């Protein structure tokens, strides 16, 4: 079985976001593997350890993402592909197109991704990729079972559990808690340096800039308003209710 894992390098969740001229500042920032993707990598490695599978990790992103891929290799992935040609960068639509071109170059039985990336939080890329490839997908898994050709995914359904069956090839995305991702062992880190990591460009993938051109545009980037102190209503109940309704209508403008 051949497994493809989608990996994005994101800000460490402990980092503060700083903006300058509408751009998120990256200097001095620590980058990590998107936490949801860590579950995806771990799941793939567990499948490999339980049976016989080859795990390829892929990332679309700047060259610094190589570090995330090396970490995935150190955890136990076999091979990495990095699409770090800036001509390949766009929006979620572009990323899915690029990943589809990469996925088509080989025969993957299973594609695992994080449910979303903690930076943009769009949750679109993996699902778009499944659409591009014309394969089924099961999202936000809390448990995954693979028996031969059959895949059973468990997902949270508002406190209940939904169990979804599919046959390979399939794409799944990982929810928090799918597993407990391992730390790479030191020997794994050493071996990772010798595992293959291929860089691919627009030309390598036989794509054109038009085909993958972004469909969306970022109009503005801004930080959320700092929280101000809340207001505690007092007085008798009916007075509090009418004060609250007025506030929702005219002060906070939550209700039009």
């Amino acid at each position, binding site marked *: 079985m051949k497994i493809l894992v989608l990996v994005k390098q994101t800000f460490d969740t402990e980092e503060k976001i700083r903006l300058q001229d509408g751009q998120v500042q990256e200097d001095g920032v620590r980058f990590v593997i998107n936490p949801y993707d860590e579950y995806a990598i771990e799941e793939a490695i567990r499948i490999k350890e339980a049976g016989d599978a080859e795990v390829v990790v892929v990332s679309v992103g700047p060259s610094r993402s190589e*570090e995330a891929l*090396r*970490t995935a290799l*150190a955890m136990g992935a076999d091979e990495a592909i990095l699409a770090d040609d800036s001509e390949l960068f766009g929006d979620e639509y572009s990323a899915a197109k690029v990943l589809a071109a990469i996925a088509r170059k080989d025969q993957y039985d299973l594609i695992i991704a994080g449910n979303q990336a903690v930076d943009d939080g769009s949750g679109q890329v993996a699902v778009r990729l499944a659409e591009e490839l014309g394969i089924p997908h099961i999202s936000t898994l809390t448990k995954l079972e693979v028996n031969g050709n059959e895949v059973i995914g468990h997902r949270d359904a508002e406190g209940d559990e939904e169990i979804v069956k599919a046959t390979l090839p399939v794409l799944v995305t990982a929810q928090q808690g799918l597993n407990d991702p*391992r*730390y*790479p*062992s*030191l*020997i*794994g*880190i*050493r071996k*990772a*340096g010798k595992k293959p990591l291929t860089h691919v460009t627009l030309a390598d993938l036989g794509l054109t800039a038009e085909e993958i051109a972004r469909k969306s545009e970022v109009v503005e980037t801004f930080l959320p308003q700092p929280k101000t102190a809340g207001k505690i209503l007092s007085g008798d109940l009916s007075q509090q209710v009418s004060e609250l309704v007025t506030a929702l209508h005219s002060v906070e403008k939550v209700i039009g």
Partner: protein
Amino acid sequence: MDFQLPEDLILMRETVRDFVRHEVEPYAMQIEEEDKVPDSILEKTKRMGLFGLSIPEEYGGMGLSMLGECAVFEELGATINGFTTIIGAHNGIGSVGIVEFGNEQQKQRYLPRMASGEWLGAFALTEPQAGSNAAAIRTRAVKKGDRYVINGQKIYITNAPYAQVFTVMAVTDPEKGAKGITSFIVERSFPGFQVGSVEKKMGLHGSHTAQIYFEDMEVPEENVLGHEGEGYINALKILANGRAGLAARCLGSCQYLLDRSVAYAHERHQFGKPIFEQQIIQHYLADMATQIETLRWMTYRVAWMADQGQNVVKEAAMLKLYGSEVYNRVADLAVQIHGGIGYIAEYPIERFYRDARITRIYEGTSEIQKNIIASELHKAYQKQND
């Protein structure tokens, strides 16, 4: 001059940093109170390969250079020192003897299981009447046929309550003084081997130190480590080898204390402003930072020299002396900057203050390090004037 660590070492140190921060540090208070590192943490530590740092790759370890070991130990120093000591004693004095002086058969038997952490290592030199003067040990090994019969007592042996493999120094020829000492590999399961009660200590909780006794303990002759009569020299070499790693652990603890102190100085307000705005607090922090930076480059330089195969007896003694003294000064200032809360056990600063104290005593006291440095200076002088 290249002050950059190789790429794989950078990734290793970052992984260890993450591991320490997320998997060990949150349990530091628990470890302190229960005086025990949870098995689950030790299991994860073993899986990462942190018990095989100094053991060569062909025996299942990492075979890290001294530079690499120091980079890892610096990160391991940034949490409760008891945890760090279990790993430090195992990788350092507990296994270096077999790595350096063991024969092929001994390496095959012990190192793979030590590298995986299945078997922990310990080093047994100190006795009631022989501390700094280690050549005064009395534990006696008498040859009988193809085995040695050992009788005696060792004290303050770190990891003794759970170690499987002990590097033991014993007297084989009382006539010859230091040259009559031999080192042995002793397994916990040898009949006649006994571990005494665990000492209560000022700090290093989670790490355990105990007495061990040998009562007509039989050790097969193939367990002689190195050659008969070379045990004292082996012990000195093992201790010297561990000095850079110990300093790196001090360095990690110092950096932890500095980071916390800088943060606290900014957060704590008195007299209407952060205490950081008091010049004396700034100077305390500047003094801490400067000494830590000095220690950092001294540590990596000595490690680098050792990796080049240079003789570092003098430099390693300087480093161990400086590292432990700086750690104690930094811990003292950290308590001062934190004021009352620095003395309260609910906060980690007082723990480091207590843990720091042992570094000036074990693996050769500060005074003994100065003796070594002076004796090296003397030797160099004599050589020049011969």
